């Protein structure tokens, strides 16, 4: 157990946010580790000392806005001094109890959150603080603290690309390469170079970002920080932050509200320079980096990173009008989002990612931000990662991915939908407005497959084709000449308003990395 963990546990103890398990761990360590007890007593001496000094003349303290200077906290007479001293000693043994019992103690939100399971590959002494949820075009120079999609305290250097770290404490940090970040604790980090975007979510208890010359304390916020050789820039998108220089004795504090930006020179962090807000371009969400990877041509994307829970419903991906909604009769919970298995699949790093786990009978619909209107001729591509999780070959267990036409008529929309997917027998199929074509290929349950669907709108009709990639296949950089399923041409719709995913009742499927775009390379292009 590192000192960082010990310090964090003592902090949690003092703040009243320690969990029962952590309290037990702390107690066990203190019983057996003399050095830890030394650290603990040092902290308790500090706490008790502060109480002693500031409580000594509390009865005649004026309003809080005019504190008595420390220099005026004179040493009391011998007896008072001795009492203060012994109260200090007493506090050493009672402080933990006092703090955990104090009336204003808030229920610890973080303390009640379940801890993530530690992967075997990571040393038990390292504290896992969160996960690397997404990355785009990342070239890492130093990423020792990143293991199996999780991260521990340490310094990470990102040469290029963008990566999103999600702290278990509820804060998301997007690194915009080149960037160097020292992860210190579960709710604090130190930016050493480059820029980051920080999203302190509503479930977080706060996040502290240190720079070479100051600390930035959030007040429930979205903000971005960029370092250069001369200065630090802070842009606040939502909420506010407090900038406090770290130099001892500096009596400067700057609150930066939403919609404003400041620049602080390295040698004079106590003076704020207002700068135009948003002048710098920060990667605020990793999806923006993915969008950039697609040359800005991706029409819609969902990595299913944020679907879990009510709070983030509708927040994942881009190119959508709202969130996923149930397309079934019931209005129950949406499909689950779970951890993706680690490893690289078709060039996509899956470690630390999430995916959509469809159960039998799940049916979800999401509307596009704007209806996708096709001209004649034009082409639309859809790619998606799919892995069947249970045995098939029983009626009603197909996976259907449906492009739904823009129409006020439910009957028309149903009859003119364009569908691709995996049949109940486990065979890829295309259903172009009622004309079904199926492949003889039988997909293996449990194996990941990349499905790429092409919809060609022609002068008089349209045709759908489906290419299936299996594990070990190389994805071509250009559209293939041979397709797994080549659909029959039929008069198809020219405008789509939504996409539906429906899982038959008899099976379960994992779905991820849904991309919709106008060209092959946009939907299958590398994400790393």
């Amino acid at each position, binding site marked *: 157990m590192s000192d960082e963990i010990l310090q964090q546990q003592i*902090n949690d103890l003092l*703040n009243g946010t320690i969990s029962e398990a952590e*309290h037990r761990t702390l*107690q066990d360590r*203190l019983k057996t580790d003399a050095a830890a*007890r030394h650290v603990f*007593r*040092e902290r308790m*001496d*500090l706490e008790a*000392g*502060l*109480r*002693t*000094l*500031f*409580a000594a003349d*509390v009865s005649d*303290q004026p309003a*809080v806005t005019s*504190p*008595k*200077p*420390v220099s005026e*906290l004179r040493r009391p007479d011998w*007896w008072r001094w*001795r*009492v203060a*001293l*012994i*109260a*200090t*000693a*007493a*506090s*050493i*043994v*009672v402080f*933990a*109890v*006092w703090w*955990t*019992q104090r009336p*204003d103690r*808030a229920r610890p939100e973080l303390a009640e959150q379940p801890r993530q399971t530690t992967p075997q590959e990571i040393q038990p002494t390292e504290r896992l603080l969160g996960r690397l949820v997404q990355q785009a075009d990342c070239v890492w120079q130093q990423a020792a603290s990143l293991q199996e999609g999780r991260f521990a305290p340490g310094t990470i250097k990102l040469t290029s690309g963008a990566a999103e770290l999600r702290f278990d404490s509820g804060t998301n940090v997007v690194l915009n390469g080149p960037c160097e970040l020292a992860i210190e604790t579960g709710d604090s980090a130190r930016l050493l170079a480059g820029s980051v975007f920080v999203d302190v979510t509503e479930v*977080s*208890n*706060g996040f*502290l970002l240190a720079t070479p010359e100051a*600390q930035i*304390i*959030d*007040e429930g916020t979205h903000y971005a920080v960029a370092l250069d050789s001369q200065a630090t820039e802070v842009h606040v998108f939502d909420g506010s932050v*407090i900038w*406090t220089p770290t130099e*001892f*004795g*500096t*009596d*400067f504090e700057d609150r930066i509200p939403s919609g404003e930006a400041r620049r602080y020179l390295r040698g004079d962090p106590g003076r704020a320079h207002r700068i135009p807000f948003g002048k710098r371009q920060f990667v605020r969400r990793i999806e923006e980096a993915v969008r950039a990877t697609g040359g800005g041509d991706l029409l819609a994307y969902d990595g299913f990173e944020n679907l879990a829970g009510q709070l983030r419903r509708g927040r994942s991906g881009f190119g959508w009008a709202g969130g996923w909604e149930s397309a079934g009769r019931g209005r129950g919970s949406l499909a689950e989002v779970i951890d993706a298995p680690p490893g690289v699949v078709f060039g996509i790093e899956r470690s630390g990612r999430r995916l959509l786990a469809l159960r039998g009978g799940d049916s979800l619909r999401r509307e596009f931000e704007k209806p996708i209107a096709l001209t004649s001729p034009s082409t639309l591509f859809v790619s998606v990662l799919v892995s069947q999780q249970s045995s098939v070959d029983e009626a009603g267990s197909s996976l259907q991915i449906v492009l739904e036409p823009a129409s006020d008529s439910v009957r028309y929309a149903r009859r003119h939908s364009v569908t691709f997917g995996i049949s109940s027998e486990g065979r890829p199929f295309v259903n172009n407005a009622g004309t079904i074509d199926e492949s003889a290929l039988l997909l293996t349950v449990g194996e990941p497959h990349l499905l790429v669907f092409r919809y060609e709108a022609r002068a008089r009709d349209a045709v759908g084709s489906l290419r299936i990639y299996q594990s070990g296949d190389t994805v071509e950089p250009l559209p293939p000449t041979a397709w797994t399923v080549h659909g029959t041409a039929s008069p198809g719709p020219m405008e789509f308003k939504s996409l539906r995913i429906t899982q038959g009742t008899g099976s379960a499927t994992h779905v991820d990395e849904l991309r919709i775009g106008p060209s092959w390379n946009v939907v299958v292009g590398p994400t790393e």
Partner: protein
Amino acid sequence: MFQKTSIVLWKKMSEFDRDGSFFHWACGIAFNEVRNFLTVQRRSRLQFDLELVELLAQEAAEEESLSESRLEALRRCLSQLSKRQQAILQQCYSGTESITAVAKQLGRERTALYKQLARLREKLLACIQLRLAQEGTS
């Protein structure tokens, strides 16, 4: 507990033998108070058990002079803080207001105040350690 222990010490001051160790005498009283407190609070969910409390108390008594040095160093380190930082500490440690109330008065989030307090403590600890090292006390 802090206040109650202080009051008990005041009340029992007449019983103190001035030729003996005040620290050890007072620690004994404080320990009894803690034990009583733990007994009353036995049903509470999170508290150190008596074995650990005894161990900490024993070692605290052995570190009497070090604690004294730390307190003196703290006094000096506090004077190096800005007036605003001192004011924040005073409000939080005066014992008259909850952290929530102080945060409200300062017009900031409670969690943000916790963060600032944590950093101030870090600063003070580093300062104290430096001073003690310079004095050869630690």
